[in-house]
């Protein structure tokens, strides 16, 4: 199967155009789900591929505990440059495991510490914090909590505050943190999936924006709330907010809200240029995922047949 063994490692590159198209043309809800699913499938395939390569690599090490058949010439022939690939795969897989473990651990730690910080406050869902830094977060876990500072609230008109709360409630209700976490883990598993993570972060925000627009009944109010909030936080010296700079291009969200609501139909028609591109890109992503899986299965079979029973 030659170089196809390595395909799952580089195929995530093909998801980039899908991410671009989905971001721009699909309903945010569809885009978030699609991109998360593609990211997870590709990350799993890529990690599986690394694991199998690592097995081939490890089997060649003297004194390894693996079956002797795994270091047979037939197995090694399945992997081009098997010596190098096997040796590189070992630290690579280790790095993936460490990175994913750290992401999960951080996720748990931040959630736990944030809940603990708010434990003494009354009110089951909304926590208003007296703070001069404007920020708002949807904190998952349990029934979820909306954290918002007085600085942000005081900068918004009543209708815009409703939009803000509707936005955060949408995050909690649709459990966006699961999509975000999945996308983050996928990006840790294969760095080529980073654009998908960025896209998911953006589409999840857009999804919540659209939900808020529906709840408030006025797209412009939501647009103004987002815009004002971003301008409020602009001058804050806190490094926290600067670190979020990559999160999402606010002007794009505002512009999207000022435009008509996106079509709720799941897929654009295949007969428009956009539809054709979106369908083509989605099919490409599916094919990459399939061939990732195929390569992984093939390698697995070769190893399986080489295993003495």
């Amino acid at each position, binding site marked *: 199967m030659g170089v196809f063994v390595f395909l799952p490692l580089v195929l995530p590159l093909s998801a980039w155009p899908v991410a671009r198209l989905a971001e721009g043309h699909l309903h945010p809800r569809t885009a978030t789900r699609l991109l998360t699913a593609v990211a997870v499938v590709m990350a799993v395939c890529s990690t599986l591929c690394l694991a199998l390569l690592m097995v081939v690599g490890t089997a060649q090490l003297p004194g390894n505990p693996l079956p002797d058949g795994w270091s047979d010439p037939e197995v090694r022939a399945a992997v081009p440059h098997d010596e190098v690939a096997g040796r590189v795969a070992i630290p690579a897989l280790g790095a993936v495991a460490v990175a994913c473990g750290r992401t999960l651990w951080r996720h748990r730690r*931040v959630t736990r510490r944030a809940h*603990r*910080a708010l434990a003494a*406050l009354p009110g089951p869902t909304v926590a208003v914090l007296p703070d001069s830094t404007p920020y708002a977060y949807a904190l998952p876990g349990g029934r979820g909590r909306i954290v918002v500072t007085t600085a942000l609230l005081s900068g918004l008109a009543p209708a815009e505050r409703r939009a803000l709360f509707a936005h955060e409630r949408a995050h909690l209700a649709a459990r966006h943190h699961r999509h975000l976490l999945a996308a983050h883990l996928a990006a840790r598993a294969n760095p080529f999936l980073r654009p998908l993570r960025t896209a998911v972060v953006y589409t999840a925000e857009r999804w919540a924006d659209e939900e808020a627009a529906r709840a408030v009944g006025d*797209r412009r109010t939501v647009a103004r709330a987002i815009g*004002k909030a971003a301008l409020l936080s602009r001058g804050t010296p806190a490094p926290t907010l600067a670190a*979020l700079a990559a999160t999402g291009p606010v002007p794009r969200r505002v512009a999207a809200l000022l*435009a*008509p609501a996106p079509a*709720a139909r799941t897929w654009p028609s295949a007969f428009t240029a956009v539809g054709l591109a979106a369908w083509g890109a989605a099919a490409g992503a599916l094919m990459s995922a399939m061939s990732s899986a195929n390569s992984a299965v093939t390698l697995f079979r070769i190893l399986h047949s080489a295993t003495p029973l």
Partner: protein
Amino acid sequence: MVRDGGRARRRGQGELEGQVLGALREAEGPVTAAWVQERLGGDLAYTTVVTILTRLLAKDVVARERQGRSFLWTPTADVARLAALRMRRLLDGERDRQAVLASFVTALPPGDEQVLRALLDAAEPGSVNSRKTAHTRDGGTED
């Protein structure tokens, strides 16, 4: 005052800070650390209470005055302020919290500010005639 019906759970420092501050706020006036310790149910060591009070002093949410050989403590902020401080510290310390916290506010890269202001100006009521269109399309945003 062990939470959760006496389930023996180790309480985090932050949780204790909240409880100590809460106790101080329930007091009629300035009180001693021993009063706080008694108020919290006595399962905390006296030194722990003093440590926490000192930490709260450093955060500027309590004040103290000397009376004889001990200090009298008064709260200067409420529980919400303490929670805000702790949340800030948490956010400042975490670089990778996007995986956890979906945020409403995102910082603007310098160039984006102009674009955003222009967009918002265009969105002001009365300045754009596409308003009606946006409204009618709203109704069509179905699942």
